[in-house]
């Protein structure tokens, strides 16, 4: 290696010492929020500029972009630094969370700059979920707005405990202390029940730099802290290591038959070699034999550390399992009460089936009861049947199988969850668990009607009836079978009612007279209705030769989606197939009133679908039918 002097290094700088200082430095993650135009992006731009993090090439490009815009003395529109997306620059607004990094001599900072527009409240919640502190901005000219309240309430919901109320654009109200005091009092009155541990109000001008780094010469009346020095020193440490140990298993590590480890990140507490641990789901105990990392085995791992645990015995553990110490186990239940921020245009309502992700656990889940919606202005509770975009609701949730969790207030990482749409896979909402519900506590299912839609939603489908009609041997049952298989493969629950299986049981008292045939169809139509009402997709495969019977079946179905499918196979073809030898017997006169021979078949005039059994294969017919009836998935059928 060449011996080159490093002129940048001052002679007394020891790199190891400097690096040690860098890694010792604390990290503060905070977000900025508040209504649109309160100056969030400008404030962050100001922080980056004042901490000398804007580099020469960025400054040059910034000055170029700042022409024709509102600028301060520096000739720069600071908001351009953070409004990174072209769409945002065009519209002059911030639509998504931007993460910014800066550091001072005392601390490193990661800032989430979050959007002010109401329709992007979900992005603000996203920024809050990983923040220790929030700067709530207020435009001194406008005071506390709806969005200020909404954001503050969401901060409280997400559990951000430290708030700085930055009353911005104070220069535009002539640095008037009365304006500042009035806004501070109003905000404190609103926030008193939001559970913030610290709340300090600072009058600032992000554009001009007042009270950012140093006391502003324009506000001799203000005695409080300046923004940056305050951020550098506030104590926010949330003591995750002193909480009960939680180790969610993320990945089973099996390089060979001799090693079986459980990889994951310690969510809270401390795990040490020799500790007794318990699997939350199975209650199976074991001891920690090794804590493995690539840097060598360690004796103990603290909250936040990603490690691999090896246990002293064979225990059946897979992804999603949670390990804890035996005396301090998490809750394990399939029902809990939670508060949620809804983040989708798709309305949330009880009964619909979602996927719930909590830690490494992913399970189907249903909102069982929406208790109330919280008015963000007044914090009042109002009754609600649904939850719309950006609304906050308190609700109960049931999962298909029990999950391990903690109350969010006692353990943030094991008490937070998201709901995912089963069809679009979109993240629909985020929630925090208040407490688990034991079976004895009984959910108030009464508050909504368990109806067909609700039952079908639990299966992720729409209940419906598909009614096959056609001659004996036309291929109705073959096609119905193929369709049922396809539905089952897609995870849907269907059932076939066919002539044979019903006549052997329910209808074994009925013969083949015209009267008996009508009763036969009436009973089958009633059964189909009951099954569809239970949430199933019902495939009915009956000759059903008469138009009147089929009309009756449709009437019995009522508002249940009903598809009549005519399998149109010519008599000659059916008779040539004669799978059960029935045509031959009818021709010999052994069977009376056989459809097509001595009893008429009335072809449908308005069938939703006609299949041609003589020219198409059963597979092609099943495919075509599936495509037409369930084409966009049974969740959307008909």
């Amino acid at each position: 290696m060449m011996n080159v002097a490093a002129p940048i290094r001052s002679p007394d700088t020891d790199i190891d010492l400097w690096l040690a200082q860098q890694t010792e430095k604390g990290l503060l993650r905070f977000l900025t929020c508040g209504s649109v135009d309160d100056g969030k992006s400008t404030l962050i731009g100001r922080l980056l500029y004042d901490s000398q993090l804007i580099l020469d090439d960025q400054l040059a490009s910034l000055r170029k972009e700042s022409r024709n815009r509102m600028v301060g003395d520096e000739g720069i529109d600071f908001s351009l630094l953070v409004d990174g997306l072209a769409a945002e620059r065009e519209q002059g607004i911030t639509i998504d969370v931007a993460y910014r990094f800066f550091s001072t001599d005392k601390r490193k900072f990661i800032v989430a700059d979050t959007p002010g527009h109401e329709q992007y409240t979900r992005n603000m919640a996203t920024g809050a979920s990983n923040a220790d502190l929030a700067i709530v901005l207020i435009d001194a000219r406008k005071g506390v707005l709806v969005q200020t309240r909404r954001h503050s309430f969401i901060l409280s919901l997400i559990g951000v405990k430290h708030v700085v109320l930055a009353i911005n654009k104070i220069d535009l109200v002539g640095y008037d202390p009365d304006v500042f005091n009035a806004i501070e009092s109003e905000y404190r009155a609103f926030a008193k029940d939001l559970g913030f541990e610290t709340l300090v109000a600072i009058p600032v001008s992000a554009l001009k730099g007042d009270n950012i780094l140093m006391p502003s010469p324009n506000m001799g009346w203000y005695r409080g802290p300046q923004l940056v020095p305050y951020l550098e020193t506030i104590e926010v440490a949330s003591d995750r290591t002193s909480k009960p140990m939680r180790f969610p298993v993320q990945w089973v590590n099996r390089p060979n038959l001799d090693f079986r480890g459980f990889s994951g990140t310690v969510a809270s507490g401390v795990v040490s070699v020799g500790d007794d641990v318990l699997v939350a789901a199975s209650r199976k105990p074991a001891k920690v034999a090794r804590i493995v990392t690539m840097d060598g085995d360690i004796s103990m791992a603290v909250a936040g550390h990603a490690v691999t645990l090896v246990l002293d015995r064979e225990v059946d553990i897979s992804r999603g399992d949670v390990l804890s110490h035996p005396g301090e186990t998490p809750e394990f239940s399939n029902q809990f009460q939670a508060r949620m921020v809804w983040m989708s245009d798709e309305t949330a309502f009880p009964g619909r089936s979602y996927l719930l992700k909590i830690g490494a656990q992913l399970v189907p889940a249903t909102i069982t009861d929406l208790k109330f919606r919280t008015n963000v202005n007044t914090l009042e509770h109002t009754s609600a049947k649904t939850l719309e975009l950006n609304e906050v609701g308190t609700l109960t949730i049931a999962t298909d199988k029990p999950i391990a969790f903690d109350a969010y207030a006692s353990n943030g990482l094991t008490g937070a969850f998201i709901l995912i749409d089963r069809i679009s896979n979109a993240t629909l909402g985020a929630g925090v668990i208040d407490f688990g519900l034991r079976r004895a506590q009984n959910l108030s299912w009464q508050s909504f009607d368990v109806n067909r839609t609700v039952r079908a939603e639990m299966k992720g489908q729409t209940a419906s009836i598909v009614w096959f009609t056609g001659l004996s041997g036309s291929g109705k049952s073959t096609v119905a079978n193929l369709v049922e298989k396809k539905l089952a493969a897609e995870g849907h629950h269907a059932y076939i009612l066919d002539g044979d299986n019903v006549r052997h049981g329910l209808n074994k008292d009925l013969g083949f007279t015209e009267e008996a045939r009508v009763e036969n169809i009436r009973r089958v139509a009633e059964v189909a209705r009951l099954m569809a009402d239970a949430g199933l997709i019902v495939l009915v495969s009956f000759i059903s030769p008469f138009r009147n019977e089929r009309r009756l079946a449709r009437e019995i179905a009522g508002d249940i989606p009903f598809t009549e499918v005519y399998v149109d196979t010519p008599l000659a073809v059916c008779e040539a197939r004669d799978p059960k030898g029935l045509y031959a017997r009818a021709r010999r006169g052994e069977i009376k009133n056989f459809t097509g021979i001595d009893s008429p078949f009335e072809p449908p005039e308005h069938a939703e679908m006609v299949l041609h059994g003589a020219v198409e294969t059963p597979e092609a017919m099943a495919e075509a039918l599936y495509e037409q009836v369930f084409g966009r998935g049974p969740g959307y059928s008909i």
Partner: protein
Amino acid sequence: MTEPKNLSHLKALESESIEIFREVAASFERPVMMYSIGKDSSVLLHLARKAFFPSRIPFPLLHIDTTWKFQEMIEFRDRMATQHGFELLVHTNPEGLAANVNPFDHGSSRYTDIMKTQALRQALNAGKYDAAIGGARRDEEKSRAKERIFSHRNAQHAWDPKNQRPELWRIFNTRLAPGESMRVFPLSNWTELDIWTYIYSEGIEITPLYFARKRPVVERSGTLIMIDDDRFRFEPGETPSDRMVRFRTLGCYPLTGAIPSTASDLPSIIMEMQASRTSEREGRLIDSDSVGSMEKKKQEGYF
């Protein structure tokens, strides 16, 4: 027994990244890791090894070779693959190669589109990968500052910045419809300084191109370009001269600017960086085409 304490800043970043790697391995059927041979890729590789130890990295590493990378990069890449025993896939756009697409005749943006963006798309389609891990950091560039850690791509590999999934806490929605894919960025929360201090404290090997040495360069529109092989096209009046330079970022040699520097070891690189007044990507010629050019490239599928 020592008293429990909180993790240091770098250890916390390391653990967060490891958690992301494991989530990918557990949630996707065919993940792949983009390996670009630079310092961020070196950190990414180190973290991947840590995430799965003692298992091997359970997915292949993919290098998009434009054929215009620095020779030292290719040597380094192949040595790393042998040393750490990972599966290395290399893809070059065959049509681009046949048409001899190069940075001199086709201009940087067309060349980048064909040899990088399209090549990447070809490789991802051919491998049917449902998750591609990359080394991008949020501190690099403005549009990246807004990207999720698990960033959804439609079947055309395009990013829709206005319709990103909310990403709360450390809960990642990894669900995909057929044909869709995810780009995953385990280094999202790292800064350039974090990368360098981590390389230093972990003793991670990086290519010698990062260290200052006398190299043959020409100065072209204010940028120092190194002559890495005899395919280089000189413009009238250009003659190479040996200068003490190093690279802050690596790519295709005709498009990567060197900086004059005497920093020949890690400590001096870190100190030099601390005093620097230009941002890292300035050396990359593609970013300066137009304001918002990176976002546009990403919507088209560039990493």
